[in-house]
């Protein structure tokens, strides 16, 4: 098992598209790290660079203390699970799982033992004799997972492995993957565009946008303190309310005079406040706050999300299911004083005065002397990028 260290990664495709602008990342040994971002943001390309299925234009990738630039995928001792499961259609489930071991000429008895163990782990022992075409999507994905873990690799790479499953199964498999990773203690890099999946799985999340890392942090940290407007709009259901505010003494004033406490760093103009739905509350139309009108309600059972039109700004407000409001009701929005809003610079899109908290893994970055270890000079140069 090993950590993964990425430094200055850049990937430009021959047609000129830049998939990854610049990316530095430290993934600790045994960590479940989620790369989260919209489609086309470069997260899958990053994963494929780690796997060795793409070769970076520049930058270094280390797995453990091994510099793997220019090494073939098969020489990196990592396993990958794909969105489309990529099971060999002509082989039974058993042979599919055994395939990577046979490719490495592992002894037959050992293959049998390890296939049985992986199958046990994923509860697919009774499916082993079937062909992939006779398995459901969830079963196929279990076989694919078993095929990945049978090799006992340095790290697992997961490329949106649950996207093709239906919602219910996805949640089951999510739990199972998390459990499996914790049990094996193997480093896992998990790519997804689903922020709920990212939040529920990751030890840490890296939010990727336009080929750059927007923010790296633990799920709750990313949720509470999005570092950028993009992260604020991407994480959370509903996403953070974002609206223009101006400074008024010790307060920030938003639409219809909605008053928020002012963080010390919030000065000047061009400010955007980020407020979670649960930081806001609704009261009757005659109370203090910003008057508005309920335009939509989402009853989720344990809570209700109200979308309130406040001077043309649509704000999401989280209320208990007992809240009495209905569509069309006149209400007043107020901000719960115990929460401090996030404030962003509308130009740069970055949070003001609240630098992203120091990352524990970042502190353990291997130093320069570490880097010289086992560096094969033939592999240390940046790859030209042609496949």
């Amino acid at each position, binding site marked *: 098992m090993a950590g993964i260290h990425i430094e200055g990664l850049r990937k430009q*495709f*021959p*047609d000129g598209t830049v998939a990854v602008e610049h990316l530095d990342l430290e993934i600790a040994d045994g960590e479940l790290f989620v790369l989260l971002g919209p489609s086309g943001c470069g997260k899958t390309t990053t994963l494929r660079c780690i*796997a*060795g*299925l793409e070769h970076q234009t520049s930058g270094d990738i280390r797995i453990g203390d091994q510099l793997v630039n220019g090494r*073939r*995928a*098969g*020489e990196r001792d*990592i*396993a*990958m699970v*794909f*969105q*489309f*499961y*990529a099971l*060999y*259609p*002509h082989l039974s489930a058993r042979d599919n799982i055994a*395939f*990577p071991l046979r*490719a*490495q000429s592992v002894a037959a008895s050992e293959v049998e033992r390890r296939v049985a163990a992986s199958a046990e782990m994923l509860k697919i022992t009774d499916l082993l004799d079937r062909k992939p075409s006779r398995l459901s999507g969830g079963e196929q994905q279990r076989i694919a997972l078993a095929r990945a873990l049978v090799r006992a690799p340095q790290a697992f790479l997961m490329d949106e492995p649950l996207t093709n499953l239906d919602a219910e199964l996805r949640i089951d498999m999510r739990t199972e993957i998390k459990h499996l990773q914790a049990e094996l203690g193997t480093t896992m890099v998990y790519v997804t565009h689903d922020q709920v999946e990212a939040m529920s799985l990751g030890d840490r999340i890296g939010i990727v946008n336009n080929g750059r890392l927007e923010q790296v942090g633990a799920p709750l940290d990313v949720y509470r303190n999005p570092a950028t407007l993009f992260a604020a709009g991407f994480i959370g259901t509903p996403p953070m309310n974002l609206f223009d505010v101006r400074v008024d003494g010790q307060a920030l004033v938003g639409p219809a005079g909605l008053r928020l406490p002012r963080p010390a760093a919030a000065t000047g103009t061009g400010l955007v406040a980020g407020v979670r739905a649960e930081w806001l509350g609704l009261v009757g139309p005659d109370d203090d706050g910003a008057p508005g009108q309920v335009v939509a309600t989402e009853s989720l059972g344990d809570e209700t999300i109200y979308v309130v039109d406040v001077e043309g700004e649509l704000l999401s407000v989280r209320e208990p299911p007992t809240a009495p409001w209905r569509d069309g009701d006149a209400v007043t929005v107020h901000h719960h004083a115990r929460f401090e809003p996030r404030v962003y610079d509308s130009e740069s899109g970055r949070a003001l005065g609240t630098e992203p908290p120091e990352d524990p893994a970042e502190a353990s970055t291997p130093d320069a002397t570490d880097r010289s270890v086992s560096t094969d000079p033939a592999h240390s140069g940046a790859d030209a990028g042609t*496949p």
Partner: protein
Amino acid sequence: MRPARALRGGLLLLAVVLMLFPAVWMLITSLKDIQDVYAATVFDFTPTLDNYRDVFVSTSAAGGASDLVTNFSNSVIITALATLLATLIGVPAAWGFSRFDLKGAKDQLFFILSTRFMPPVVVVIPLFVMYRWAGLYDTRTGLVLLYTAFNLPFTIWMMKGFVDEIPGEYEDALMMDGYSRLQAFRQGSLPLLVPGILATAVFSMIFTWNEFTFAVFLTGSTARTVPPAIAGLLGGQSTPWGLVAAAAMVFALPVLAFGFLVRKHLVAGMTFGAVRR
């Protein structure tokens, strides 16, 4: 319901008669001797296989194999080689265009296709001059090269569609398991491409087998294929219609038989964009 069915049956019958008439006429003619061909009746004749014998056996006093036998063997050899070469070159090329991000891939593909825009008859005169100069005139090699070049664009375009349909993850997974890029292609994608390759090869084969323009201009007597040879039987003092029809029947048979055998793949090939994984 009944009149509608009768109408449909009638229309179908009409279509069958219209479509099969030329083939049946050819078959009947091939079984007639020359008097019966010129006689005013269609079905009233004594069938004879003399024409078929004449296709293979020379009518000259010395006997032996006829010229048409040479033409047939030319056609078979040239078609087989040109199809094989176009497939061997075109399938990997299509795989490359499908799997890799190539600089100007779209322009390259368009260029490849554009080589088919020109009607053969436009380029055949310059080709004739070049072939004379290069010593390729009236050689099988010359026609094999030319037909390979003409089959390639089609092979690449059609095969690219098939390769696009096969998820690259098969190859990715194999590469993760330690196989090289090419091994991954051979083990992962190639087995799934076989129906597509067959369909494409059949199209190439039919094109090559039937090609007339180049063959008539670029061959003399040595490398002449069947289509210009049959055309060569026409004219002169009298046209041996029975022999023409018999030769045409023999010529059509292999393609018909082959097309029938691989018809499932052919349909898959023609609808390649719509085939589900």
